[in-house]
C-alpha cells in the first residue's frame, strides 16, 4: 500500500551526518555498494564497469561543495572558501513523495520504524518515484529493471546473529572519521537526537515539504584567514632575558 502511515511512526530510524567531520574518503559509498550488492534484493549492477563510461546503481554518494561566505575572498587555493564533503543517501522522509506516487504498491514506508523500502517483486521499473524524490535518493538498476534505494541496511540493524556493534548500517559501521551516526530520531534521549539538538541539525530542502528523518550537522564556524594570520609569532627578541638576552647582544655585535 503506497499511502503513508496515517500516524507518526513510533520509531524514526535514520542517520545523522556530521559535515564538520566528513573527510570525503568515500569509504561509506564503497561499503554501501559492497554490502547491498550481496544483501537485500537484486545485486546493484554496473554498466560498462571497466570501460570509459562506467556507471551503475549506488545508494549513497559523496558530493563535494565549495562554500564562500558573504564578502569572503577566493584567492587561488588559499581563500576563505571551504570545501564541504557531502554524503547523500535516502533521508527516509516522513512525507515521502516517492511512496505515494508508486502505482503498484512496491514502494512503502514501514509503520513501525519509518524505513522507506521497495518490494522489488512488485516494482515495474517505471521510474516515477525517482522523479518524485528531490534528493536523488533512488536509482534504477538497469540490469534488474527495478528501483534501488537505501534500506538503512535493514538486513544488518535487526540481524541478531551479528555482534551488537555491527547492527548498524554499513556506511555508519565503516566510516573511519565517525562522521555518520545511526539511531532513533523519534526518541529525544537517543544519542543522535541529542547530537541534532546540540549542533543544530538541519533538514535538506525543507521547502519541498518532505520532512526528512535524516539530519545533517552543519560545519562548525571557522576563523577567517586574516584572524589566523595575526596569530603568527613575530620575529623579534624584545623581552629576552638571561642566556638568550646575552646571545642576542653577542650575535648583534658580530
Amino acid at each position: 500500500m503506497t499511502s503513508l502511515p496515517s500516524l507518526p511512526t513510533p520509531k524514526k530510524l535514520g542517520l545523522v551526518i556530521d559535515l564538520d567531520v566528513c573527510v570525503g574518503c568515500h569509504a561509506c559509498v564503497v561499503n554501501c555498494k559492497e554490502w547491498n550488492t550481496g544483501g537485500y534484493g537484486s545485486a546493484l549492477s554496473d554498466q560498462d564497469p571497466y570501460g570509459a563510461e562506467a556507471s551503475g546503481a549506488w545508494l549513497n554518494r559523496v558530493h563535494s561543495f565549495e562554500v564562500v561566505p558573504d564578502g569572503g575572498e577566493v584567492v587561488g587555493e588559499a581563500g576563505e572558501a571551504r570545501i564541504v564533503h557531502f554524503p547523500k543517501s535516502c533521508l527516509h522522509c516522513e512525507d515521502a513523495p516517492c511512496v505515494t506516487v508508486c502505482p503498484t504498491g512496491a514502494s512503502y514506508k514501514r509503520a513501525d520504524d519509518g524505513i522507506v523500502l521497495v518490494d522489488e517483486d512488485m516494482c515495474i521499473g517505471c521510474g516515477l518515484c525517482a522523479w518524485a524524490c528531490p534528493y536523488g535518493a533512488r536509482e534504477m538498476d538497469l540490469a534488474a529493471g527495478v528501483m534501488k534505494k537505501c534500506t538503512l541496511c535493514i538486513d544488518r540493524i535487526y540481524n541478531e546473529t551479528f555482534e551488537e556493534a555491527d547492527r548498524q548500517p554499513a556506511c555508519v559501521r565503516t566510516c573511519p572519521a565517525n562522521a555518520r551516526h545511526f539511531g532513533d530520531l523519534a526518541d529525544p534521549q537517543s544519542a543522535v537526537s541529542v547530537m541534532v539538538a546540540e549542533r543544530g541539525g538541519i533538514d535538506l530542502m525543507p521547502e519541498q515539504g518532505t520532512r526528512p528523518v535524516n539530519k545533517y550537522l552543519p560545519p562548525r564556524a571557522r576563523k577567517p584567514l586574516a584572524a589566523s594570520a595575526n596569530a603568527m609569532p613575530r620575529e623579534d627578541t624584545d623581552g629576552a632575558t638571561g642566556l638568550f638576552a646575552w646571545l642576542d647582544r653577542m650575535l648583534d655585535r658580530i
Partner: protein
Amino acid sequence: MHPALSIIAFTTLSGLGYGLAVMLGLGLLDPAAVATKIAWIAALAAIGGGLLSSTLHLGNPQRAWRAFSQWRSSWLSREGVMAVVTFVPLLMTAWACVIEGRQAVVPGLVGAVLSLCTVFCTAMIYASLKSVDAWHTRLTPACYLLFSLGGGAVAASFFAFCGGGNALWLPLVAIVALVGAWVVKRAWRQHLQATAPLSTPESATGLGAIGHVRLFERPHMTENYLTREMGFRIARKHAAKLWIIAMALGGVVPFVLFALLLAAGAQAGPGAALVAGLALASHVIGILAERWLFFAEARHAVMNYYGG
C-alpha cells in the same frame, strides 16, 4: 528531464485519441458516415497505441497490471484505472457507430467525460511532482486538457471534411480550442521562465547559512541514472527555436488552414480533406515538439546536487 520518446509518443497519441473520442462521443459527426466509423477506429488505435507505448519504458513491463492497484494515492495508477474504465463506454459507442451506424448517446457522453478524466490523470502525474517546478502548477493539466480537445477537434474536422458530417462547426471548435490551448500554454511557459527555483544549492545542502554554495566535485566522473534521467540539456540549447516551431506547426498552421477552408466555404471533398489532413499532420508534429520541450525544459531539484 529526459524526454523519453515512448512517453512523448504516449502523451501525444493518447491525448489526440481521447480528444477525438470526446468529439465522437458528443455526436459531432454523423454516425452513419464511413469517415466517422474510420474516425472511431483511429481514435481507439491512437489511445491503445499510446497506452502500449507507455509500457515500453518500464523495467519490468510484465508486471504492469500491478499499476491498477494504488489509485488511492498515485496519479499514475489512477491514469491506468481510468484508461481501462474509459475503454468500456468508448467501445460501446464505437460498436454502435461502426457496426450499427447509430449514435449511442449515453455511452457516448459517459465516454467523453471519462476520456477527459483520463487525460487529467495523465497531466496530474506531472503536475503533482513538487520536485519539478515547471510542472508543479495547475496550468499543466489545463494545457493537457486543452491540447487534447484542440487536437481532437482538428482530427474531427479532418474526418468531417472526409464526409463524416458538418464541416462548419467542427473547424470553428478547432480554431477556438487551438487559440485557447496555446494561450494557456504560453502562460505555462511564462510561469516556467519567471518562477525562481523552489530549491537551490544552498537549501539542498543546508549550507546557505555559511555562504554561497557551488558544486566542487560530482560523486562520480561519469554520468549516472540521475544525471541521465533528470539532467537532460540537449533541447535547452534550441529551446527558443523549438518553441516557435511547436507554436507554428501545432497552432498557427492548422488555424490558418481551417480559417481558409471556412472562408472558402469548403464542403466535404478530396481537396478540403487534403488541406484538413495537412492541418492535422502539422498539429501532431507541433504537439510532439511541444511535448519534447515539456520534458527537456523542466529542471529537477536533484540537479542542485549535480551543479545544475
